[in-house]
Structure formats: structure tokens, C-alpha cells
């Protein structure tokens, strides 16, 4: 139907529909020095969902990295489930009542091999429900590698206003994280 609407719209003056996108860039960081964590803070409740897109570099092995919301990292309010593959074996795991969620998994790599991630945080500003996060992260090291799907749950009805990523080892320079809002 879109082409028909376009033809009709071209004959209307004064109220033409201008297509607008639904995904907005909110903030980005690219590290110029190593960092123990990366935080997006003061996130407004302007959107329905959030997406975080990243290319992480690490000073050592990727290891189990954590994600936390609104500075909550001691409440046992997090749980997660994973589906993963290390290039030879596929597996699944889960854990309840954690102090933080999970954003990377155990795995050995070197600082040369970037870890890519796309994370969706759904209905993040809703104050009537717990928050659910899904993401895919993976890295390949030419002879090693890891692919993982994660679901994280944060048992809080607070709107998410800050997100912190804490790796097992420090983030290396050139790690880049970007936060987007989806209407």
C-alpha cells in the first residue's frame, strides 16, 4: 500500500507526511584509555526500547562480564539464561538470584580480537514490570571463538536510567559502545 499512499500524498498540500525514523542515537563512547567499566547514565524515558551496540576490546581474556542497572549490584535481583557455542560444543546455562546480570561469558582471547554485541532492553521505562534484556555477543580468534545468546532479567519495576558494563578484565582502548532509543 505504500506506493499508493505516496501518490495520494503528493497531491496534498500543507499536510504531507514526512517519514521519520524510529531509532535514535542517544550516546556513544570510544575509549582512549583502558577502563574498568562503561556506564550510560541519565537515560530519559523518551523511548519504548533501548538498543546497545558495541565492539568490545579487552586487556585479557573476555571472561564473565556483568551488567547492572541503576547502580543495583547487590540485591540478588538478577537472573539469566544462555545458549552458547565455543566452536566445538554447544551448551546452555542459567543462574538465579545474582547481584548482577551477564553480558559476556568465559572465553579466552587476546586484545586483538574484538567482541561484537547487540543488546535490546525492552520496555525499559515501564514502572509496572520487571525488565528483560536479550543480547547476542560473539568473538572469533581464528582457532578459538565464542557465540552466546543471553536473556537477563532484573527484578525491579524501576525505570532504567543507567546501565553499567563491568568486564572480567578491563576494557581496552578502542572499545566502543553506543546507546540507541527505539520509539
Amino acid at each position, binding site marked *: 500500500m505504500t506506493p499508493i499512499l505516496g501518490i495520494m500524498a503528493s497531491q496534498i498540500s500543507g499536510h504531507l507526511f514526512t517519514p521519520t525514523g524510529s531509532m535514535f542515537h542517544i550516546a556513544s563512547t570510544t575509549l582512549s584509555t583502558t577502563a574498568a567499566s562503561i556506564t550510560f547514565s541519565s537515560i530519559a524515558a523518551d523511548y519504548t526500547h533501548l538498543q546497545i551496540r558495541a565492539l568490545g576490546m579487552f586487556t585479557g581474556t573476555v571472561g564473565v562480564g556483568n551488567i547492572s542497572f541503576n547502580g543495583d549490584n547487590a540485591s540478588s535481583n538478577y537472573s539469566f539464561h544462555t545458549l552458547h557455542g565455543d566452536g566445538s560444543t554447544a551448551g546452555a546455562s542459567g543462574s538465579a538470584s545474582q547481584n548482577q546480570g551477564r553480558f559476556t561469558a568465559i572465553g579466552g582471547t587476546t586484545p586483538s*580480537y574484538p567482541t561484537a554485541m547487540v543488546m535490546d532492553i525492552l520496555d525499559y521505562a515501564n514502572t509496572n514490570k520487571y525488565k528483560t534484556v536479550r543480547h547476542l555477543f560473539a568473538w572469533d580468534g581464528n582457532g578459538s571463538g565464542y557465540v552466546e545468546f543471553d536473556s537477563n532479567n532484573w527484578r525491579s519495576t524501576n525505570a532504567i536510567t543507567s546501565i553499567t558494563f563491568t568486564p572480567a578484565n578491563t576494557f581496552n582502548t578502542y572499545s566502543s559502545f553506543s546507546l540507541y532509543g527505539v520509539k
Partner: protein
Amino acid sequence: MADTVTYTPIATNTLSSAASSVTFSSIAGTYKDLVIIAEYAGFSSGGATTLIRLNNDSTTNRYSSTNLDGDGSTAVSGRYTSATGQPGMLMGGSNYGYGAGRAVEIFQINNYANSTTYKTVLSRFNQASGMVQAIVGLYTQTTAITEVTITTYGSRTFSTGSTFTLYGIGA
């Protein structure tokens, strides 16, 4: 400052005849990430196995990949190192390569324009008749990506009607 709208279509290609590859070239470094959405109308005999080649670099010792697959009964994980000798990173359908049916694949190339890190490509491949997959590929060059070729393993082809669209996500 107001947040800026993004996820911009850059180019699209619908195959009017079967083809063994589709290339997006002259990609400006304007965006932070690239997303390619491919809808494969089918594959020629031999089935689905896609490769991604970057910057028209066919040097076979520069690509590797790791995959996580489910075929409806089991989950497996596999890997292809540079020793496999492919002129690109093996992506959708790798580890199987027998399904010729319709499939979709979404590629994510994060921070594609930086000239410091190796390049990593994420892929999600879904073929209802055969499998679901997540794949990560590595390209061991730090050059900014200006050209992406989606091609096939061996001499297979994408069927007529397959669509490929390149998007840029700004930052």
C-alpha cells in the same frame, strides 16, 4: 542536544536473475555500524552457505568464523579457521550447507570504519526448512570497511528475487 534519528537505508539490490554474489561498494565511513538484511529466495543445488568478503580481499588466510547452530533436533557449534582457505568468512549455512530453501540473514558490522581493530561480523541466519544459526566472523585486517560482498560457498547462486539491503547506523 536532541537525539538524532538513524538506521538509514544506504543501498538495496533485488536480484533479477540468479547471482553468486552481491557487492555493496564505496561505503562511506559516515556511520558507526552497518547492518545488512538479506532475504534469500533460495539457493542453487548444493544449498545454503554464505560468505562475507570485505574490501574485495580474497586473501584466504585472513578470515575465520565460529558458529552456533540448531537444526530442530540438536544444537552444535563449529569453527572454520583461516586454514580452511576460504576467500571470505563462512557465515549462514556453514556446518550444514544442504538446505536450498528460502532463508533470511542479518549481518551486523560494528565500528566498521575504524582503522585500528580487526573487523568482526555478527550474523543471524534463519532457514525454516533447515536451521537457525548465530555466527561470528573475523577479518584480520584493520583497514576501514568500504566494500562488502555477500557471496556463496563454491559455485552456488542466490535465487532470483533475493533481496539485499544495506543500512547505516550513526553515532
